[in-house]
C-alpha cells in the first residue's frame, strides 16, 4: 500500500519549549490512523504542521509523495480538515458556504458535488438554512461536507464527534468508514473517544509530551498492556510516565 502521509522526524519548538520531539509515522492509503494522547501531548501541533499552518523546527512531511514545504498549494488541494474548534461563516447559508469552499478548492461540477454530499450526509434540507442557526449535530455534518468538498486524498480529523449525541456520532463514524472504503483515502484521527478509535482505526499512535510513546493496532496494544480496552491503555500510558518523572 502507498503511504499518503509520511512524517519524518518532525520537531516543533516554541522558544525553549519542545512541543513535538522528533516524531515519525506513515499513513497508508485506505487507512485510518488514530492519534491519541492527553491534552498538550502535541497532537494539535502535529496536525497543524501537516496542514502547513505551522512550520516544523526540523524534519520533513510528505503528502502523496510531495514535500509539504515546497508544494504547499498542491498539497492543500488534496487535503482537508475538520475540528470542532473551527467553524464555517455563521451568517451564510449552508449552500453558500459549500459553494464558497468549492470555489476556493476549484471544484468542478460544484452543483453535483454539493448534491452528492447533501445526500450522503443528509443535509439536503439544511442547504438554505443559516449555518449559525444549526444544531451541533447539523453543524458537524455540514463541516464534514465542507471537508469533503474537494474529494481529499487525506483527511485530518480533530475530535470529529466531540459534543455529538450517540446517534449522530454513530452516523458520522459509519459515514467515515464507508467513505474511506469507497474513496481509499487516508485519515488521521485525533480523538479522546477510545471506542471510536477502536472501531475506526487500523492502528494508533500514543503521544505524550511531544513524543510517540507507543504504537500499534488497538487490539495488540490492549493485549500488550494487559488491559481490557483502549481507554485503560490510554490511562495507563498517560499516567505511568508522569508517575516515574
Amino acid at each position: 500500500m502507498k503511504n499518503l502521509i509520511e512524517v519524518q522526524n518532525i520537531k516543533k519548538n516554541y522558544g525553549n519549549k519542545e512541543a513535538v520531539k522528533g516524531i515519525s509515522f506513515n499513513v497508508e492509503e485506505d487507512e485510518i490512523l488514530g492519534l491519541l494522547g492527553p491534552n498538550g501531548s502535541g497532537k494539535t501541533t502535529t496536525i497543524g504542521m501537516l496542514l502547513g499552518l505551522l512550520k516544523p523546527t526540523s524534519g520533513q512531511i510528505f503528502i502523496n509523495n510531495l514535500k509539504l514545504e515546497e508544494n504547499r498549494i498542491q498539497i492543500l488541494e488534496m487535503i482537508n480538515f475538520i475540528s470542532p474548534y473551527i467553524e464555517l461563516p455563521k451568517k451564510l447559508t449552508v449552500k453558500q458556504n459549500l459553494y464558497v469552499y468549492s470555489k476556493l478548492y476549484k471544484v468542478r461540477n460544484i452543483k453535483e458535488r454539493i448534491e452528492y454530499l447533501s445526500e450522503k450526509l443528509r443535509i439536503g434540507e439544511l442547504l438554505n438554512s443559516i449555518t449559525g442557526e444549526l444544531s451541533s449535530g447539523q453543524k458537524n455534518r455540514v463541516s464534514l461536507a465542507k471537508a469533503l468538498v474537494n474529494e481529499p486524498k487525506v483527511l485530518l480529523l480533530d475530535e470529529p464527534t466531540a459534543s455529538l449525541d450517540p446517534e449522530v456520532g454513530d452516523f458520522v463514524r459509519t459515514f467515515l468508514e464507508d467513505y474511506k472504503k469507497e474513496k481509499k483515502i487516508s485519515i488521521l484521527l485525533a480523538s479522546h473517544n477510545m471506542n471510536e478509535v477502536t472501531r475506526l482505526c487500523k492502528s494508533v499512535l500514543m503521544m505524550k509530551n511531544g513524543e510517540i510513546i507507543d504504537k500499534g493496532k488497538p487490539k495488540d496494544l490492549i493485549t500488550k498492556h494487559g488491559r481490557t480496552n483502549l481507554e485503560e491503555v490510554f490511562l495507563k500510558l498517560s499516567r505511568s510516565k508522569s508517575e516515574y518523572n
Partner: protein
Amino acid sequence: MSITRIYGLFLRHFYLITRSFPRILDLVYWPSIQITLWGFISNFFATHTTYYNNAVGVILTCAILYDFLFRTSIGFNMLFLEEIWSRNFTNLFIAPMRIGEILTSLVITALIRSLIGLVPAILLTSPLFGISILDLGIFLFFLFLSLYIFGITLGILVSSGLLRFGPSFENIAWSTMFLLAPFGCIYYPIETLPEIFQKIAYILPLVYIFEEARNILINQTVNIQNVYYAFMWNAFYFSLSIVLFYYSFNAAKNKGTLINMGE
C-alpha cells in the same frame, strides 16, 4: 493566481453583506452622516473665513476623500476580522489559496464595500449643499486611487499585525486612521502643523493628496508634483506592507498563531 479562488473568497464576503440589511445600512449610514455633518460645518466656514472664501466645497470634498480612505482601510481590516470572529480563519488558511490571492480578493472586496458607502454620500452633497466632488476633474480619479492604495496599505499593515500577534491586535486596527489623521492635513494646510509634525506629514502620501485637492478647488490649478509624490510614497508603503504581510505570515507559521486564531 487563480481567478476562481479570488472570486470564491470575494463571494464569501459578498454573501455576508447581501444577507444582512444592517451591514448594508452600516456601510451607507456612516459616510452619509459624516458628509452631512461636514457639509454644514463647511457651509459655516465658507461664509465666516477668508481662507475658504469662494470655495464652499473644500472641507466637504476633503471630508469625502478622508471618509473614502477611512472606509477602505477599516473595510479591509473588517474582512480579516470577520474571519477571526467567525472562527473561519483556519478554514481559510488551509484552503489552497496563495497569499497573493487572499490579498487580491480582500482588496477588491474592500473597494466594493467603500463604494457602497461613498456613492450615496457623493450623491447627497449635490442636493443638500449644491456641491459636486466632480469639480476636481480628472485628477479626482488619481486622488481617489492614491487614497485607495494608502487605505489598502494600512489595512494590510494592520492585518499583518493580526497575523503576527493574533486578535489582541484588534484595538490597533481601529485606531490607525485616527493616529494618522492629524498628520494627513485633511482639513488644514500643512503649515498649520508644528515643524516636527510637518516632517512626519511629508513622508506620508496623505498630505500631498489633501493639499492637491485644496489646491485644485481654491486656486483652480493643478500641481502634478503633489500627485507624483503621493504615488511615490504610496508605492513605498504598499511594497513595505506586502513584505511585512509575508513576513508576518511566516512568523505566524513559526509561532502557531494561525492555528490558535480566534481562541
